[in-house]
């Protein structure tokens, strides 16, 4: 995959099974956002193919819904109307059913009382819940999340992670999640793809192997520490600094 004259991803081969929760961890500039945008269909590869269920992707669509970082809600629409956006342009359901589904998903993310508020009245964490509800209401095959919690404070970030898992348990969608944080990756996913410097591609493909549902005790398990250390040293090596990676 090349931007202008710069190759960003090269020789990348990745297979993701249905129902997996996969995280991509990596350094800045390693191409993880590019990878997500490729899977979303927002970018087209300069060579190679991306297929979902065997069919190549031609462009973006609600089947590969994206949960963006903070600034992705339409500020002139209420929470309800924002979530409805996930369905209204697909013309799959009539208006009243779209509304009903939107309300159901708003309740699912715990924002029932805020359905008629505007994004600027909500906190960052609440806005991300709306982002999530909007992506889920679209009934995607794959849920793509590009560092969705990066703009939140540490505590909210953890809470949102728990929320995400709680909601995910109900539907078990395939999730591709991008993060900077090794610990967040371990906490959330089944499989962690580590990416190194640009063009180095995937440097590790790790099975998490921790029991679900993930509770806070998971952090005390030896396997957690083992993975955490492993990922950090991999990334540190990749960045060539030799010191422990500055990962939260």
């Amino acid at each position: 995959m090349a931007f202008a004259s710069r190759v960003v991803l090269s020789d990348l081969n990745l297979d993701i099974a249905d129902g997996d929760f996969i995280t991509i961890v990596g350094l800045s500039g390693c191409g993880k956002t590019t990878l997500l945008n490729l899977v979303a269909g927002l970018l087209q590869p300069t060579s190679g193919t991306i297929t979902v269920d065997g069919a190549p992707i031609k462009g973006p669509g609600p089947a590969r819904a994206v949960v963006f970082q903070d600034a992705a809600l339409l500020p002139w629409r209420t929470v309800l109307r924002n979530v409805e956006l996930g369905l209204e342009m697909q013309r799959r359901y009539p208006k009243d059913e779209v509304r009903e589904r939107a309300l159901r998903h708003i309740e699912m993310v715990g924002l029932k009382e805020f359905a008629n508020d505007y994004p600027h009245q909500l906190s960052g964490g609440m806005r991300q819940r709306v982002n999530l509800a909007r992506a889920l209401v679209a009934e995607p095959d794959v849920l793509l999340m590009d560092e969705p919690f990066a703009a939140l404070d540490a505590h909210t970030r953890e809470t949102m992670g728990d929320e995400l898992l709680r909601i995910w348990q109900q539907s078990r969608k395939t999730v591709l999640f991008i993060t900077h944080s090794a610990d967040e990756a371990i906490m959330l996913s089944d499989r962690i793809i580590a990416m190194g410097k640009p063009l180095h591609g995937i440097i590790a493909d790790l099975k998490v192997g921790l029991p679900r549902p993930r509770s806070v005790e998971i952090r005390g398990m030896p396997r957690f520490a083992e993975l955490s250390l492993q990922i950090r040293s991999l990334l540190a090596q990749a960045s060539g600094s030799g010191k422990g990676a500055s990962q939260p």
Partner: protein
Amino acid sequence: MADVTATAKTAPWTISRTGVKLLGMMVPLLIWEVASRSGLVNSVFLPPLTRALLSALVLPVESPLDFLTTGAEILVALIVTGLGGVAIGVVLGRNETIDALLGGLIWFLYAAPVVVFTTLFIVLFGVGPTVPICLGILSGIIFVIASTRDGVREVGAELINVGRVFGARRLELPLKIIIPAAIPMIMAGLRVGVGRVLVGVIVGEFFAAGSGIGYLIVKYGNDLDSARVYASVLWVIVVSLVLNFVFARIERSFVTWRAV
């Protein structure tokens, strides 16, 4: 412990700010009335204020057709300027090639005083409402186009990607996402454009209409009926103020969702 109370010295009467403003307006008006009535200034050039005001009150009843004509011309010009300007602005903002191609023409419209097209329009369209309407549109549309284009260009890529991901079709992306996102800038352009449209229409009526308030100004000027000239001018000012006020209200209601 002693209680200390401070009492501000107040004047026996106070004038509020509005009061001062009103007083400020009254003074030149008074001077006007006195200067004219006393013969200090030739009443052909400056009729007494009271006579001008009286004339203004009567004018719509005297010449209803002219008022209707001007009103209709302004309405048509505003609609075309608004819809056309926004549409063109969106296209320019979204399409780099077209923007580059038409950029020169836009600059030309910005720079040229539109009034110079009057003679050309008279030749093309003849005397009648078309010339004021066209002049009005040409005067105002450039501001709507320019600010719409800029507003559209500034719409964040993330919002556009949101539209793309959730299945926005060709017309849905601009209508549901891009234009709403650019509304603040579009509104600013419309506000300026509205004033210019009014000027364009009136100036067009000076030269090329058989009727309208602008035409009345010229006609009564030629007749040396200065009271009616001032009356007509006053009505133009009233229309301008009303348009401005309505616009500011519309603009404010649109921008309430803006994050702090």
